[in-house]
């Protein structure tokens, strides 16, 4: 693994009386896609939210590009170049697609000032967004909303993209579209930490993989080695890729 851009060491998160993360150790390598796998309730979403400062870090360190970001205010973490696509997509349904994109470009005041070349690239990845540019985002389908959520994360160049279950609830055809889009995104050497439950989706994209269970990382390594080891898949995820397909 190349030099880690994001490094979590012994991270604990408590939400009220609940102790959710029990010492998470996770490294995200620069320019690679790391996939965080695990069943429901394993702590994947909490890990992303803790990185973003949406839950405070109770113990441990989170370092981004060599600087501590643990429990820093969320806007400050975002301004350091981390984009977050939450599980619920976080779309502003009363705002148009254009307005949603404009808000994601922090230092741009007007839609006309959005980087046209980058916008064309995004429209290439997600053509539906061009078509519905002036539509209220609340009227989009689930797949279109997910496209908008990811597009918002990349409307400006970011150092790290945190994406929470982008395939959740999507039709197979749209999932395939997402895979194509993420592959293209990988070519730009964007560093991505992707949370997934869909192993078939994850194995097509991930360079590195970490598996969570009970609020801890129980396995980390390359995606290729996990894909090749059916017994390990069975042991870690309770499934084998062959059976999953």
């Amino acid at each position: 693994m190349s030099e880690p851009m994001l490094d979590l060491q012994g991270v604990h998160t408590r939400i009220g009386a609940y102790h959710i993360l029990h010492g998470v150790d996770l490294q995200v390598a620069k320019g690679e896609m790391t996939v965080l796998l695990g069943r429901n309730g394993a702590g994947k979403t909490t890990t992303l939210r803790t990185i973003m400062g949406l839950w405070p870090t109770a113990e441990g360190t989170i370092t981004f590009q060599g600087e501590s970001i643990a429990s820093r205010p969320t806007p400050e973490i975002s301004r350091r170049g981390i984009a977050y696509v939450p599980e619920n997509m976080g779309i502003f349904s009363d705002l148009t697609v254009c307005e949603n994109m404009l808000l994601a470009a922090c230092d741009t005041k007007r839609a006309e000032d959005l980087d046209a070349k980058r916008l064309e690239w995004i429209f290439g990845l997600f053509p539906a967004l061009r078509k519905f540019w002036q539509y209220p985002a609340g009227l989009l389908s689930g797949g279109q909303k997910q496209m908008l959520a990811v597009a918002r994360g990349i409307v400006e160049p970011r150092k790290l993209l945190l994406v929470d279950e982008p395939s959740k609830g999507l039709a197979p055809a749209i999932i395939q579209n997402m895979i194509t889009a993420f592959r293209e995104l990988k070519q730009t050497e964007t560093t991505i930490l992707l949370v997934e439950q869909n192993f078939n989706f994850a194995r097509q994209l991930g360079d590195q993989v970490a598996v969570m269970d009970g609020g801890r990382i129980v396995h980390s390594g390359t995606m290729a080695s996990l894909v090749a080891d059916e017994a390990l898949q069975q042991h870690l995820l309770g499934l084998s890729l062959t059976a999953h397909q």
Partner: protein
Amino acid sequence: MTTTATTVPATDALPAEVKTDRLPLLLIPALALLALPLTGSFSTWVTLTFAGLAMGMIIFIIASGLTLVFGLMDVLNFGHGLFITLGAYVAVSVIGRMIGYVESPSLMRNLMAVVPAMLIAMVVVGAVGFVFERVIIRPVYGQPLKQIMITMGGMIVGVELVKVIWGAQALPLPLPAAFSGSLLFGDAAVEKYRLITTVVGLLVFAAMLWVLSRTKVGLLIRAGVQDREMVESLGYRIGLLFFGVFIAGAALAGLGGVMWGMYQQTIVPEMGGAINVLLFIVIIIGGLGSVGGCFIGALLVGLVANYTGFLAPKVALFSNILLMVLILLWRPQGLYPVVKR
């Protein structure tokens, strides 16, 4: 960066047609038309309708900040009435020093007194709002019960301070000479001040709509009302945004206080507290956090108060509560509910 046109089966279908919910907008003309035969004469109806619209516009100016403050941070500010009182008292102090301008029949000289009075009231009340948010509201974010108690307490203390500064007795807030009197439309007499109030209310509403729909700050406010966590995740400090909205809301309440004081022509320290209930009825009717809903709610409250005051004075005592109950039976989240996450 390369561009690859990906195929997007099943994603290119046009979304359902964009439909604006216009039904609540129809309530205002429907209510006015319903009142027309009941009032018995067209001229009375015109007078009552303009009185209702003017009252509604002032309530809207006062309540618009309150609804945004709730929408953005779920803060229930029961101390909003203090800003109304303070606005009116600051205006009394300013106008008291320019009484010659107010009594002059010249519109220009009247404006030379009233406009500075309004601006100074907005600045002073905005500054008080700044302190109120920092000292009283900030320590109780996310604690609704404490918010209710402490903001009510803050208002009580503020009102007592007003009594210390200006005295407990009622003070006159004279209407400028050029604003007095009525215009005749056939047999119907419409007070000039009510017309002016209606125009000012419309201007404030238009300005708010412009800010909310055409500026990035406006977009952030609308987005923050829906999902403040996502706004923060995009890199914006929602606390700062809320702080700005709170101060602007307080300043608008100050402006409303000046207008309400001139409407009544007499002010008392308790005037803000007396309107507080009305404000909460308006923002609940409109849908908490919705500026458009607040506008319609305020006009409905103004019209219902005037029509029932004329037709059935006993009903007028609880007409606004009745209106709220009826609206909530129809739309439990208010006329324009804000989808929050």
